[in-house]
């Protein structure tokens, strides 16, 4: 079974995507070719932007079954409206109106159970797409892409994670920012979580929130400090106080930020930054071995 690593961060823009794509590429080159990257930041999927040449192996639309009310059969009893916890159904008996808002529907099926008149049937409603891509080097990147206007990001992440992980040694999940549902869904089955942060007051405050979530979910995790050298020492004091393992520090470098902005990968980055990623790969080797040990015992 693959060892699953999620890359998460409460604050946006700390470098989740950079870390994900570089780690993916470093693992592929220097450790095992059986590694896959899942871009779970379906609202703004960016991992593919870092791979100049890739081929789309497969692309499929993701649909949610959304109910439709048959006005001819409907008796406007409002039972479905009462059952719907997501305010997706509006029934107005006086004007014989009954309608479902597909973008509010969570596809739970409650209205189907509620309807005594068999007036509700389901049809497909697109919430986004999933693509399987092979990068030029050969690594496989799977991406979820939310349809603009759809609020059902968590559903799409759930669907993306059903993609096969057979034969993989390592699977990397690039998580969305924040600490709410979509993040929980992404890291739910992760064996290990890397929290990417930056040494600024915003970075540190949001890290604390994320650490709370990790502890609540009983996840094993460690921190990777990105843009090190920026900001102040507050973050390091917190990490020490809380005895949180630090996996490494990636120094802030304005030139590198310029490279990043162009979407450059490991091969084009300064050697001192590349070294940090190679160290990170070594650490993950150890962590995954320990996990395997735990698993077997």
């Amino acid at each position, binding site marked *: 079974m693959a060892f699953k690593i999620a890359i998460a961060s409460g604050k946006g823009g700390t470098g989740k995507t950079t870390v994900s794509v570089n780690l993916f590429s470093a693992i592929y080159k220097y450790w095992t070719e059986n590694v896959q990257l899942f871009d779970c930041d379906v609202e703004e999927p960016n991992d593919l932007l870092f791979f100049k040449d890739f081929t789309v192996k497969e692309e499929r639309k993701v649909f949610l079954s959304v109910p439709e009310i048959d006005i001819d059969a409907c008796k406007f009893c409002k039972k479905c409206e009462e059952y719907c916890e997501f305010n997706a159904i509006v029934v107005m008996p006086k004007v014989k109106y009954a309608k479902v808002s597909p973008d509010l529907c969570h596809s739970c099926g409650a209205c189907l159970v509620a309807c005594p008149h068999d007036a509700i049937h389901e049809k497909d409603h697109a919430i986004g797409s999933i693509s399987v891509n092979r990068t030029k080097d050969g690594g496989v990147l799977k991406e979820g892409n939310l349809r603009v206007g759809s609020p059902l990001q968590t559903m799409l992440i759930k669907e993306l994670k059903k993609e096969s992980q057979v034969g993989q040694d390592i699977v990397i999940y690039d998580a969305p920012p924040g600490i*709410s549902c979509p993040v929980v869904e992404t890291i739910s089955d992760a064996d290990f979580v890397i929290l990417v942060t930056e040494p600024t007051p915003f970075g540190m405050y949001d890290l604390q929130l994320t650490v709370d979530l990790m502890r609540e979910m009983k996840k094993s995790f460690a921190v990777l400090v990105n843009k090190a050298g*920026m900001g102040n020492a507050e973050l390091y004091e917190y990490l020490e106080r809380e005895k949180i393992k630090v996996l490494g520090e990636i120094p802030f470098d304005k030139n590198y930020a310029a490279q990043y902005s162009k979407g450059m990968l490991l091969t084009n980055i300064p050697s001192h930054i590349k070294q940090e990623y190679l160290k990170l790969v070594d650490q993950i080797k150890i962590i995954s071995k320990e996990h395997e040990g735990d698993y077997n015992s």
Partner: protein
Amino acid sequence: MKEITILSGKGGTGKTSITAALASIAKNSVFADNDVDAADLHLIFNPEIKENHIFYGSWVAAIDSELCTNCGICKTHCRFDAIHYKPDGGLEINPFECEGCRLCERVCPAQAIRSEQSTNNNWFVSDTRFGPLVHAKMGAGEDNSGKLVTQVRRKAKEIAKEISADFIVNDGPPGIGCPAIASITGTNAVVLVTEPSKSGFHDAVRLIELVQSFKIPIYALINKYDINPEISNQMATFFKTEGIQLMGKIPFQEEMVEALIERKSIIEYNKDSVVTKILTDLWTELSRVSLGYTYDSRRI
């Protein structure tokens, strides 16, 4: 009264720093932190909390094993795979997987399932040196469906009416999903804070598509523009074709972080900052134009 929402698509482009800087310029305004998932604005605003309210979040179901007859009807109905057999054979619900639809509760013939609303979210009304601030703290792993964002905005609007404020300024969430949608609907204008990276550009394009579907005017700022002048130029051209007014290009500056460490807005930290002029112009423009929007009742 006009309501302005600061958004970016991509995280970390500088929404909160820009909102704080705007606060140093804005007069007679109410502020609302719409990024309830990872709220940071209070770190600069240093709020004195006047009101603290519990926000009732989504429902989470639980099975009472005393009453459960193990019939499995709930499990067959649950579309979220949230109900599992325990090693001892009984049924249980994983609260992290529960969607809160309450269908299991309704179909259980033994009435063994109960749902409770989470009380793990709070929202606050505070006094700050910039004016009133409405903000929130979401519990870890809660459902950020946009309802808490809507609550924060509703209260800000109420206060703005009471004190006859000229503006409400919303510090928005990243992304384009439900929190972002909840932050956009019905606002008078969006200030897009973006950065010249492939990711920043890509995310901005998706956000613009979303905002334009609501027919809300967009004013753009390119932050850290000198990190990649080439992409900055491409963005400027794109904004032009989309009819989006580019209000300014802000260079990368260490000062932004230094100000943050002192819990100050960049303008408080250095009143002669380049940002001062850009944001003053932006504010003048927003005050000058009448901002209309078409409210689309199909969206929440």
